C-alpha cells in the first residue's frame, strides 16, 4: 500500500494510519455482519409483534369497532369486562378446563415416558412411534377424532356402554361431560411432547440410585416414588407450566370437538375473544379481554422463566 520511494518516517506514519483504518474496518465489519444477520428478524418483530401489541393495548382503551375513528374511552372496557358475566363464564370455564387438562396430560405423558424407559419392556421402538403419532394430528383433526369417538348416537364409546347394558351418555349435550371429552382429547394430543421432556429427564437420573435402591430391596413402585419422581421435579414443574399455557390458549381443538357448546357453555377465553372481536366486531372490548388473558399467560411464563433459569431445567 505504501510507495517504496517514501522516506522511512512517512512510511511509519502511514503504517500507523493503516492500523487504525484496519481496526475501524474490523469494528464496522463486526457491527455490520450481525446487523445483516438479524435485520430481517427485527423487521418481522416490529411488524408482526410490536405493532400489533401496541395496537392491541391502545385499542383496549377505545371503543373501536373495526371501522371509523376509535374514540378514547379510558378504562371503561376493563370495568365493563369485570362486570360481564359472559366473560367470567369463559374465564372460569377455561380455568376449570386447565385444572383438569393439565394433571391428566401430565399423568399420561409421565406414564408413557416411564413405560418407554423401563429396562425390561419389549417393543419400545414401535411403541415410541405410536406414542408420537398424535403429535402430528392437528388440533382440528384431534377434535374431529374425539367427536367421532364420543358421538351420542353413533360414537364408539356409547356403543360399548350400551353393549355393557348402560344408557347412552350425553357426551355432547351435557356441558361437563363435553368438557371432559375435551380434556381427554387435549391429553391425547399433547402427551407426546411432554413425554419427550420426561424421557430426557428420566434418562438423566443416575443409574446408581436405582442400583442402590434395588440392593436395599426397594420394589418398582418405591423406586418410582422415591427416586424417579423427586429427581425429575424440575421437569415436572416445567411440563405443568407449559401445559397450563397451552390449556389457557385452547381454541382450535374445542372448535372442532363441540364448537364451544352445548350453547356457549364451553366457550373458552380465546373463543370469547375471537367471537367478540370478529363476529360482534367489538374490537376495543375484545382487546381488553385479550389483555386480561395476556396478564394471566405472562404470570405463568414468568414463573416458568424464573424456575428454568434457576434450576436449569432444560
Amino acid at each position: 500500500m505504501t510507495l517504496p520511494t517514501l522516506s522511512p518516517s512517512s512510511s511509519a506514519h502511514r503504517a500507523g494510519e493503516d492500523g487504525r483504518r484496519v481496526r475501524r474496518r474490523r469494528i464496522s465489519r463486526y457491527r455490520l455482519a450481525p446487523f445483516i444477520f438479524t435485520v430481517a428478524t427485527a423487521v418481522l418483530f416490529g411488524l408482526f409483534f410490536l405493532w400489533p401489541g401496541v395496537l392491541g393495548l391502545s385499542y383496549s382503551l377505545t371503543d373501536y369497532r373495526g371501522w371509523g375513528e376509535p374514540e378514547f374511552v379510558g378504562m371503561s372496557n376493563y370495568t365493563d369486562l369485570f362486570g360481564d358475566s359472559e366473560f367470567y363464564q369463559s374465564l372460569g370455564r377455561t380455568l376449570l378446563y386447565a385444572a383438569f387438562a393439565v394433571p391428566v396430560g401430565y399423568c399420561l405423558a409421565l406414564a408413557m415416558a416411564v413405560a418407554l424407559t423401563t429396562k425390561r419392556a419389549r417393543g419400545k421402538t414401535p411403541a415410541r412411534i405410536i406414542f408420537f403419532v398424535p403429535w402430528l394430528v392437528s388440533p382440528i383433526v384431534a377434535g374431529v377424532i374425539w367427536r367421532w369417538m364420543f358421538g351420542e348416537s353413533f360414537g364408539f364409546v356409547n356403543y360399548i356402554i350400551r353393549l355393557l347394558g348402560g344408557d347412552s351418555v350425553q357426551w355432547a349435550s351435557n356441558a361437563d361431560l363435553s368438557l371432559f371429552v375435551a380434556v381427554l382429547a387435549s391429553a391425547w394430543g399433547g402427551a407426546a411432547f411432554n413425554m419427550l421432556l420426561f424421557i430426557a429427564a428420566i434418562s438423566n437420573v443416575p443409574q446408581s440410585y436405582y442400583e442402590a435402591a434395588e440392593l436395599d430391596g426397594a420394589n418398582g413402585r418405591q423406586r418410582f416414588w422415591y427416586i424417579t419422581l423427586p429427581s425429575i421435579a424440575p421437569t415436572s414443574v416445567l411440563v405443568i407450566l407449559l401445559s397450563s399455557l397451552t390449556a389457557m390458549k385452547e381454541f382450535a381443538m374445542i372448535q372442532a370437538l363441540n364448537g364451544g357448546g352445548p350453547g356457549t357453555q364451553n366457550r373458552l377465553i380465546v373463543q370469547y375473544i375471537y367471537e367478540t372481536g370478529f363476529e360482534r366486531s367489538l374490537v376495543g372490548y375484545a382487546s381488553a379481554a385479550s389483555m386480561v388473558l395476556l396478564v394471566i399467560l405472562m404470570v405463568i411464563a414468568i414463573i416458568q422463566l424464573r424456575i428454568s433459569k434457576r434450576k436449569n431445567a432444560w
Partner: protein
Amino acid sequence: MVTTDALTVPPKKRKKYDRRRGHGEIRRSIFPTTMLWVLAALMAFPLLWFLLSSFKPGGELFSYPLSFFPREWTLGGYEDAFERIDFLRYLGNTFTVAAVTTIITVFLCASTGYALAKYKNPWLSVLGLCVLSMTMLPGEVILNPMFMVVRDLGMYNSLLGVIMPSILTPTGVFMFRQFYLTVPDELIDAARIDGASEYGIFLRIMVPLARPIMLTLAIVSFQWRWNDYILPLIILGDPDQFTLQIALRSLVGAENINWSVLLSASVLSMIPLILLYLVFQRYVTSSNINAGLKD
C-alpha cells in the same frame, strides 16, 4: 403381545439361558411390557377407529352393531371428499404456506441465532430481549390487531398474510443460539485468520454444522404451519385461499355434518405429515429437542 413374545423365543436360545434366570427375565418383563402396550393401544385406538371408519360406506357408519373393521371396504368417502370440496386446492395452499414459511424460518432463525450467540453489541442485546418477550405474548392475544396490521399491509386474504407473521419463532432462534453457543470461538477465529468473511464463515462453516438442528426445526415448523388454525382463520376470508384446517373446520361446523366426507378429508389431511414423520422421525424424537419447542 407378551405371550407371543414368550412363544417366539426359539427353544435353542432359551436353553442357552440359565433356566431360572431366563424365566425370571420373561416374568419380570411381563408387567412393563403389558403396561407399555396397553398405553400404546390406548393412544392408537382413537386414530385407528377413525382411520377404519373412513373406509366404511356411509350407511355402515351409523348402523348398529358397529364393527371395528369395515364389513365392506370402500373408497366412496374419499371420492366424495375430492368431489364435494376443493381438496387439491386446499392441499396446495396448505403446502405452499407450510413449505415457504419453513424454508424462510430455518434460515432466518439460523442467522439470528448465530448472531445472538457469537457477536456482542447493544443492538443484539436488545434484539435478544425482544425475541424472548415473544414467548410471553402468543398470537392468541393479538388476534384483532394482527388482522388490522395484515390488512393495512395489503396482505388480507392472501397466503402471504399467513406466511409473513409466522416466520419468526422465538423457539427456532433459541434453538440455534443454544447450538452455536456450543461451537468453539476458535473455529471462527481460525476462519477469520484464513481470510474468510463474516458471511462466508456463517454460510460455509456454521450452516453446515447446524444441519441436524435445521432439520429438526424444519420438521417442527412444517408441522406447526400445516396444522395452524387461528392465523389462517382470521387472515383468509375467501374459500379459494383456505388451508386444509379451515376447510375441515367448515365441514365440522356445518349444521349437518357429512361424516363420510369429513372422515376421509381429515385422514387425507394427515398423510403428508405422517410420511414426513416416518422418514425423519429420529430428528424429532431425539434428545436435542428442548422445552422451548412449543409453538
